[in-house]
């Protein structure tokens, strides 16, 4: 029995002393190999008899288990140590740049258009569309701008040769023709917005021959100027995310609305920098941002809607313009330059889908 205990002590010492996986393997072979010490002891058991064999066998098994357990444990330690040693040599330069991933940006016009849709969508508006190349009727006549009316001079219209020598087509000078197209194809109550490209033959520091507008049209039996004010105030405050943004309505003139009003929002021009917000109601604290009014009865009639029964409001504003104001983009002309530096700087990541739930 003493032999067995000595064997165990000796083997456990050897296991503990093994300083590599190879050394440990040598210990294992010396214990459990064909000629291993434990193997030899096992073989010798057969020469014993009776109770002694049983007793010795049990003792030997305990030794065997203990040694195997020690080897396994030692093996794990050595593995860990070896991994540790290997990893200390596996070094990268973490200051190296990673592989580039796609990183495209959306144009501010797209983002702001979707922001507008997100806000007006909450108010029950749906998005209507119309063609860029319009006929005279939809762009002018139906909007109570008869031929030769001086008001047409307010719009510097692009004309197209058009087809088959017929009447000249126009590039729509505003998104308002979509009002008419909507009235022609749907019945009140109507609540639509129409964003899109618009064109005027104007090109200077603050005008581009193409720009973007968004139009809103509400027609039902009860909508009045109070609703017009409410809708516009709600929009402006949501869009600019300024809950106390002052909004002012001034009487004005548009052929397609009566009464008509221009809309100003609060701003500051201090230090030559234009900022939107509540800076008091001083004479210099207002910035015009849109035209609005109650839809003119003639416009309703041109759209096939009974003006004795229905009424409503319409307004329109420049998408590029409100984008400039909200995001501090100084120059309209840069919108259409496709300068990659500009798009990267003022653009939006594609995952930033506008929604009122997330906040604008």
């Amino acid at each position: 029995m003493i032999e067995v205990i000595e064997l165990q002590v000796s083997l456990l010492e050897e296991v503990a002393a093994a300083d590599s996986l190879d050394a440990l393997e040598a210990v294992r072979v010396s214990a459990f190999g064909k000629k291993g010490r434990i193997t030899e002891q096992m073989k010798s058991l057969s020469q014993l008899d009776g109770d002694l064999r049983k007793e010795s066998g049990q003792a030997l098994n305990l030794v065997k288990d203990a040694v195997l357990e020690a080897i396994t444990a030692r093996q794990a330690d050595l593995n860990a140590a070896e991994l540790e040693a290997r990893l200390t040599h596996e070094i990268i330069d973490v200051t190296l740049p990673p592989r580039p991933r796609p990183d495209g940006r959306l144009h501010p016009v797209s983002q702001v258009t979707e922001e507008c849709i997100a806000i007006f969508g909450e108010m029950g508006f749906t998005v209507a569309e119309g063609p860029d190349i319009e006929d005279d009727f939809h762009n002018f006549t139906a909007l109570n701008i008869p031929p030769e009316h001086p008001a047409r001079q307010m719009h510097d219209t692009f004309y197209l040769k058009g087809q088959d020598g017929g009447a000249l087509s126009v590039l729509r000078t505003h998104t308002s023709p979509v009002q008419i197209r909507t009235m022609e194809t749907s019945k009140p109550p109507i609540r639509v917005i129409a964003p899109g490209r618009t064109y005027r033959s104007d090109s200077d520091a603050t005008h581009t021959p193409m720009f973007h507008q968004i139009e809103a049209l509400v027609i039902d039996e009860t909508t009045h100027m109070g609703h017009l004010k409410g809708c516009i105030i709600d929009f402006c405050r949501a869009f600019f995310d300024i809950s106390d943004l002052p909004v002012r309505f001034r009487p004005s003139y548009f052929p397609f609305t009566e009464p008509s009003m221009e809309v100003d929002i609060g701003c500051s021009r201090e230090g030559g920098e234009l900022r939107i917000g509540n800076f008091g109601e001083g004479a210099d604290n207002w910035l015009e941002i849109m035209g609005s009014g109650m839809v003119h009865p003639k416009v309703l009639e041109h759209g096939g809607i009974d003006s004795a029964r229905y009424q409503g409001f319409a307004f329109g504003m420049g998408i590029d313009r409100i984008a400039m104001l909200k995001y501090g983009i100084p120059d309209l002309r840069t919108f259409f330059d496709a300068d990659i530096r500009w798009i990267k700087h003022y653009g939006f990541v594609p995952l930033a889908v506008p929604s009122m739930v997330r906040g604008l």
Partner: protein
Amino acid sequence: MKFTLSWLKDHLETAASTDAIVETLIQIGLEVDTIDDPGAKLAAFTVAHVVAAEQHPDADRLQVCVVDTGKEQVQIVCGAPNARVGMKGVFAPAGTYVPGINIELKKTKIRGVESNGMLVSEREMGLSDDHDGIIELPDDAPLGEPFAGVLGLDDPVIDIELTPNRPDCTGVRGIARDLAATGLGTLKPFDAAAPLDGSYASPIDWSIASDGNACSYVVGRHFRGVTNRPSPSWLQDRLRAIGLRPISALVDVTNYVSIDLGRPLHVFDANKLDNNTLTMRRARDGETFMALVEREYTLDSEMTVISDGDTVEAAAGVMGGLETSCTDDTTEVFLEVALFDPISVAATGRKLAIESDARYRFERGVDPESAGWGAEVAARMILELCGGETSRLVTAGIKPDGARKIELRTDRVARLGGIEIPVARQAEILDRLGFETKIDGNIITTTAPSWRPDVHGEPDLVEEITRIHGFDDIESVSLDQDAALPSAAINPAQLRASLVRRALAAQGLNEAVTWSFMGRLHAELFAENADMLDSLMLVNPISSELDVMRPSILGNLLLAAGRNADRGFADLCLFELGPAYRDAGPDGQLLVAAGVRHGNAHPAHWSNPIRIVDAFDAKADALAALDAAGAPTANVQASREAPAWYHPGRSGRLCLGKNVLAWFGEIHPGILGKLDVRGPAIGFEVFLDALPERKDKSAARPLLNLSSLQPVRRDFAFLVNSDVEAGNVVRAARGAVRGLISGVDLFDVYEGKNIEDGKKSLAIQVTLQPVEATLTDNEIDKIAAQIVTAVENATGGSLRG
């Protein structure tokens, strides 16, 4: 429309401040463009009293004066001969900017004597060229107050940007009437309009030709024995204050009445007229006219003129002629007070490119009644300023009746305007604006005044009442909705466009918005045929580089890529989602997502070799767009057919059946050359309108059956002729065995060493998904053999050994 505050107060009795007046103007829709307050600029110059004046000890021509500024006594050295004890002058302390000599005064010593400011002359103030001495103010000028008020130089000039619907406000009186309606003041009576008896018959008469010209009615009046001299200073000052140059009394009167009352007038030198009848008629095509501004204009038959015999003496309502204009020598005058059609005047003015005060008024619509009182007002002024006598009136045509009866239901203000205003108050506002009103139950019967041609119907009256009452008082009401949750704001096609836009940005493309137009020369490179551009040409383009609606977005994107490359950013990816045009018709506008990649496919990177963009980048972009749009991209077929602006061998199209969804590929190097853009560049165009609509509206997906059996993968390499398309191999393998093959991926294309010329090796990995039981080796071998046979049959190739 410019006027001064004091001019306004000729018509408006008010104690309101300038600020209050300006604020009210804005609130009633008379948008104030600028306010120029000269008093503010002169505020530092105050009334001072000279209390001592002694000879300068060291200079003969200088005096040492002590002036009382009202706050203190200051010593100054003064060179003016008229400086003397007891006088009141205009004092400028040290530190003041003196406009007439453009210097800032400094405390200084003049020949050893301290001087702390100056008494200024008119020239030093920039008021005139007078430098004979310092300004002398009346004895009662208030000490220490700004002198500008004493001399009437503090009259603010207000400039209103008038909307085209308000002809009445082209005169100061109309503006005063609007302000008075708000209660800010009261409108003063207007008594210059009473008829003035003439003392003789006018030797000159009017005639209106019946040729459909723009004149409906005209009044004339002759004057004799007049002396045309400079106007009195009050009149000159008024005109100057609003930027008009005084000419002579006769001309100044016409300008004054035009601004004061919105009534344009013209005066002819009657001695210079050849005939005793002046005729309103259409011009003849090509007829010429020498205008007051000493420029000759060529007329056409759409324009109306005033002719003296055969000679055109005025472009009606726009500008008078040089030949018969009044000069210093004029002694006999013929006054024209006419009514012209606004549209015709506007068109003539536009064609001749003449901006005049007359056009400004006539094109908005002059009060028809003013043809009558205009002749009286003008006559009074001419007689007063120039003496002489005036004739009885001559007229031609029929004076239109400008009055209109309009009924207003009393609930309309509340129903349309959203504000309850008592009926009496509604009527009061209209009365003050010059309407005649009668309350008749729940109707206010009104007659619109002749000077408000813009008011036609009920909504106009609602506007008048609410605007004068104040839009601010209309309570704002948020829109209500039938349901708490609105339905989707955008339709499936609009959603698709949004998804495609965001998917392309996610592919690394940057969104551009470029012009919907381009230059025809460039457009032809992207047109399937040049004729299609004819209907898309702009009649009045900004420039020849923007003269046609674009048939494709690619051209503008490539030009943009070129511009970016020129700035040093050659490796870039742009896309645009927007319109392209086939024709000018209602269906000629397509919604297209197009993109270009230019230069290197990715920035230089330590781990990646540089790779130049190729057609497969474009194919991936197009497929990403189609995928985002919900197109069944697994069923999309690629074929090597693309329009001429693509590289003929390295481009293709993506179709679903016969439906062309997209083009992609390398841009034709020749096209790049013509655009002056250095390549290489690839591009794609995805036609969003061509996408099939989703048939299944349900949000639910088909049931997912996940197999518990492991898929088996086998690789095959085939040797095929070089012109065999990989798609054929994949398709044949896919169809080789029904139900088991879940995927075929092409993973290698090889030509070159160990492959005979004209052949290539295509390697595919086929994934087998067992359905019922694990496949045995025998079964797999059998399937493999079927795949090989199918591919060999389809392509004429053979399995590589």
